[in-house]
């Protein structure tokens, strides 16, 4: 996927002025956090589970090579195939190669962020293979030719009215006077449209929430059942996943599943949890004739052993963005690539380079809410700070900010000069602001005073007043 992360500020400006988006975000801010709270309130062991989840993933990351090889052996033992892709280009070519071999014309897809990461849909289309998204949200944004704005709720930036409009514009075979007032009628219409596509598809592509090393299985969770139809009906099932999706055992996956839906949507479990192991066996009533897994690295192995390794614990629940006040203000598209919000602020620079995403780790107030709700206890603010350190070292941060900060640090290390400046500033600004108590306009603080007043100082610095009082007392 093409990134516009470098244009984050412009993207955010546009998002703040988008009335539909803002109304959709108002709903999101009110919904997700409360549902999560309700769900974990009913599970006293939630905190223990977080610790357990963290340890499971830490253990895997410390022994990733061993588990990957074990996983590969067990996929093969179950009759499946494993392909390794270092780059998005390699993954696209492997998918295309499989489609060509199978003579595939249409491909149904369950929701997969990895496919977004490698820009699969546009590529397949350009090669004459038609991809059809089957997750409702993904289906909607595919019709609108938009990228997802959230990793679990891809169309969360849209209002119901916008979806209705899109359906009327694209489903032109249906009666124009049909009633699409209720969300239910929109779902029913999408279901009707998709049913036929499921039956005709040659290949089904899904992502994976977990890959189980001990059994060679892949696990997906959905709320619509579209994943099952995608992977069971066509002749071949292709799983797209990144390396760090591995967990050792089914029990480990079960522990993480208990964290996932609660953190994501506030459900105890997603409606469908599907474990797939290999292709259809002789005694199976249904299933795909071929089962392929393509494992993507795309920079992840380079994060191992660095200060960003912990990011690979992420299970893609979206809790960090659901709770992030910055995401809540601008939505997901502003971040400019596949992964928005706090997790994207760390993952995006890791995968596409900090020079292409230098705003993202800076666009955070470090309020810490993301870390506090992350089921895997990923220290997101700390890692964003590490990226700021890299930007500082590589002089990627804005020159004006660097000069300002250097001057301030120079003062902070020279107390007499620092206090002299502060005493003068307190006096001058205090005098100028005395009548109003605040500034409507202030040179050098225009970014602040454009939309809010700058409170005026009281007139003298604390240090000056304190030490003068001490002197008086001593006399």
């Amino acid at each position, binding site marked *: 996927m093409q990134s516009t992360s470098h244009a984050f500020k412009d993207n955010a400006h546009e998002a703040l002025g988008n009335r539909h988006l803002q109304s959709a975000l108002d709903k999101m801010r009110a919904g997700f956090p409360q549902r999560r709270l309700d769900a974990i309130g009913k599970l006293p062991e939630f905190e223990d589970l977080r610790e357990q989840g963290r340890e499971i993933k830490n253990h895997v990351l410390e022994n990733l090579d061993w588990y990957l090889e074990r996983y590969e052996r067990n996929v093969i033992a179950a009759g499946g195939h494993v392909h390794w892709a270092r780059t998005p280009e390699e993954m696209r070519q492997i998918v295309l190669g499989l489609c060509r071999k199978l003579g595939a014309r249409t491909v149904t897809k369950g929701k997969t962020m990895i496919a977004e990461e490698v820009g699969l849909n546009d590529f397949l289309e350009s090669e004459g293979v038609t991809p059809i998204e089957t997750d409702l949200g993904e289906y909607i944004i595919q019709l609108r030719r938009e990228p997802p704005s959230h990793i679990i709720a891809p169309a969360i930036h849209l209002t119901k009215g916008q979806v209705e409009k899109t359906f009327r514009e694209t489903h032109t075979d249906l009666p124009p006077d049909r009633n699409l007032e209720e969300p239910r009628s929109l779902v029913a219409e999408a279901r009707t449209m998709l049913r036929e596509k499921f039956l005709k598809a040659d290949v089904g592509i899904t992502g994976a929430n977990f890959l189980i090393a001990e059994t060679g299985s892949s696990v997906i969770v959905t709320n619509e059942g579209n994943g099952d139809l995608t992977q069971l009906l066509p002749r071949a099932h292709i799983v797209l996943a990144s390396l760090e999706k591995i967990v050792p055992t089914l029990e480990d996956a079960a522990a993480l599943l208990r964290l996932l839906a609660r953190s994501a949507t506030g459900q105890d479990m997603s409606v469908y949890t599907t474990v797939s192991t290999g292709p259809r066996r002789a005694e199976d009533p249904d299933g795909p004739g071929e089962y392929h897994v393509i494992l993507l690295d795309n920079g992840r192995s380079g994060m191992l052993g660095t200060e960003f390794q912990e990011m690979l614990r992420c299970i893609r629940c979206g809790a960090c963005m659901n709770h992030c006040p910055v995401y809540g203000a*601008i939505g997901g598209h502003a971040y400019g690539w596949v992964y928005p919000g706090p997790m994207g602020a760390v993952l995006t620079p890791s995968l596409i380079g900090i020079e292409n995403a230098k705003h993202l780790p800076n666009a955070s107030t470090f309020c810490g809410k993301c870390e506090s709700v992350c089921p895997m206890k990923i220290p997101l603010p700390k890692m964003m700070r590490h990226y700021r350190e890299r930007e500082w070292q590589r002089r990627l*941060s804005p020159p004006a900010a660097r000069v300002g900060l250097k001057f301030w640090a120079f003062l*902070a290390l020279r107390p007499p000069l620092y206090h002299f400046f*502060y005493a003068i500033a307190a006096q001058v600004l205090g005098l100028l602001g005395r009548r109003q108590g605040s500034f409507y306009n202030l040179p050098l603080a225009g970014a602040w005073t454009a939309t809010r*007043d700058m409170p005026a100082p009281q007139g003298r610095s604390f240090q000056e007043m304190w030490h003068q009082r001490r002197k008086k007392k001593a006399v």
Partner: protein
Amino acid sequence: MSSVSDSTPAKPRVGLFVTCLVDLFRPSVGFAAVKLIEESGCQVEVPGLQTCCGQPAFNSGDKQDAAAIARRTILLFEGFDYVVVPSGSCGGMIKEHYPELLQDDPPWQARATTLAERTWELMVFLHDVRGMRRVEARYDGVVTYHDSCSGLRELGVKRQPRTLLGSVRGLTLKELPGAEICCGFGGTFCVKYPEISDKMVGTKADDILATGADTLLAGDMGCLMNMAGKLKRLCTETGARPTRVRHVAEVLAGLTDEPPIGEAGG
């Protein structure tokens, strides 16, 4: 530290870390903190060579300057029984981040850790360390309270200010919906991304106004200036009566003669 020979134990020595914003913008918060710490049975000193905690450098990725400032702060304050900070943000910097910042320098990291163990945000110090449960103060009004992020999530500041405010005569506390959601200040964030910051503080200001409270309190000058600035602008535009904005320490110390943040003296 010092040998005490007489029968009454010496009062603990507290070093007050003033913070840049209190020093420059609102000395009354510093004097309120001194009064409260003294009321909790301690003696207060204010090292004259202190400057900033170094957080702006630390959060901008300038580790070198941040570490140099941290070492200076440690030198100045490591002789005290306690270090008290009227800010969750600067307090969190010293208590949570100094040891991490200096981790490549073991001797200094050890000194940072020792200092961190003795460093407290003002509300936590009064309530948890000194066991203070009530204050002698009066404030007539309905107040609402914003939980500043660093204080809340790094240092656990939540019930302490509420318990103490509960003892202020004439004061009614009306909880703020979304009190734990960031106000959009974020240090340099508010000038690096002013539009996003403004959207966040606008949402916060709406929530504050919806409570109907006449006063907003919090424990961090950065957040307070951001919220006060936005409230003032909104009230100027609509002609509404401005919400009074104060640091919680001013109300607890009964030092509310100075005009509220962003307001002119009457």
